[in-house]
């Protein structure tokens, strides 16, 4: 079980704990992640607003490198990066002229059989929730997370082709496999406005406030995400102290992997008290 791996820029900054928990969980599942050599930024939320061709070519360089490394499908933990890579893949697959242009600029030949997977998709559907359940050492029984998918995983569905865009279930299924009891709520795909986090704080505060308060109202003890931008945004812009996990962190808790305290230290809202109350610290 070997995969090419794109950590993304936030791996060593804002989503440090996402990266570490991903690695730990993957080890526990007996898989191997081979980081793309000398990968570059996917262009994220800004490039497509400046130069659309560039926003296709930056991810294409990563695809080119992962493709030639020949270690298997490319796995992307961050939903934002995943979306950017998939947009490029969509252009490469569906727009002949664009493909030639990108290939010429980046200097490679695209192989349409090369796969790009979201980490969540890989775990839930390739590895399978059955295998996840087998690895669980400490059931997350009693934990009521609100599964938050945000925008980038499920939209645009023609690009991400992942789960139902209005009521996705992958993350809920994963949480159930860990023994948790994900709550039903209506804001799992609402946008948190992370793109405006640095420029329009008050707008983002409203968007985040609604998501977090709705999760709380629905009975959630925490929110689970799969996106570096969402996690940071939800943590920093809320006023009710609802812990925000990366889904890999909760897998780590259930698998009882080492080094979890290092993750919790990175959180703006410490989840330790919640975990202690459930005997999961």
């Amino acid at each position: 079980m070997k995969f090419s791996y794109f950590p993304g820029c936030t791996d060593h900054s804002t989503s440090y704990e996402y990266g570490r928990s991903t690695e730990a969980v993957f080890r526990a599942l007996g898989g191997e992640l081979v980081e793309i050599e000398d990968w570059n930024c996917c262009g994220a939320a800004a490039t497509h607003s400046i130069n659309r061709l560039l926003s296709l070519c930056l991810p294409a360089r990563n695809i080119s490198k992962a493709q030639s490394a020949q270690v298997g499908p490319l796995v992307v933990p961050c939903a934002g990066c995943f979306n950017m890579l998939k947009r490029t893949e969509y252009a490469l697959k569906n727009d002949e002229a664009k493909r030639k242009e990108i290939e010429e600029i980046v200097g490679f030949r695209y192989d349409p059989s090369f796969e790009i997977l979201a980490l969540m998709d890989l775990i839930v559907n390739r590895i399978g929730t059955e295998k996840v359940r087998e690895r669980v050492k400490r059931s997350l029984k009693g934990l009521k997370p609100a599964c938050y998918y945000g925008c980038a995983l499920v939209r645009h569905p023609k690009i991400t082709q992942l789960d139902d865009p209005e009521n996705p279930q992958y993350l809920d299924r994963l949480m159930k496999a860990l023994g948790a009891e994900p709550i039903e709520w209506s804001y799992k795909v609402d946008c948190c406005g992370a793109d405006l986090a640095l420029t329009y704080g008050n707008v983002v505060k409203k968007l985040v406030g609604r998501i977090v308060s709705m999760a709380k109202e629905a009975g959630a003890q925490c929110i689970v995400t799969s996106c570096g931008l969402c996690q940071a945004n939800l943590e920093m812009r809320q006023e009710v102290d609802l812990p925000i996990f990366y889904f890999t962190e909760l897998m780590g808790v259930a698998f009882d992997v080492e080094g979890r305290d290092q993750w919790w230290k990175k959180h703006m809202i410490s989840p330790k008290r919640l975990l202690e109350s459930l005997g999961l610290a």
Partner: protein
Amino acid sequence: MESVVETVKTGTSFLEEAKRRSGEDLSLCYQCLKCTAGCPTAPFMDVRPNNLIRMIQMGRKEEVLGSSAIWLCVSCETCGTRCPNKIDIGVLMDALREMAIEEGIPAKERNIHLLHEAFVQSIKRGGRVHEATMLIDYKLRSRDFLTDLIPGMMLFLKGKIPLFPSFIKGREEIKRIFEKCEKK
């Protein structure tokens, strides 16, 4: 008269250009307002997404490219996912921003555009985004030093913003990609 009544002019070259650049068939819009109804930032826009399409159909280029809406769009794709006529407004917004930049129309939401620029420049410099230098770059560009100081500090204190950037080896490659893309 001129100030109130809009004389509808021959030719809708702006519509044609917007169609061509975005690849979206904007003529199909029948103003159901599904896009605006689900848009997270529509309440903060000067022109709502549905109206923006209408204005494109009417050839009102300056107003469209000078609107705050094209900058406040967060590309969440809720509109495009739900549009009954398959119009991907997110993609349209990208195209409109690009057109505004090319036409030299100052971004109505200057800071948003400056942040985008700082972000892209950060990639150009090192191949990856380095938050600290990018933020300083942005603050210098926007001369907006006070906004969001506290969250930034919090991240820094949590050790989430590394001080030194990690440059990739293939910086030359990145530079070449940038050059080629900027030329087109």
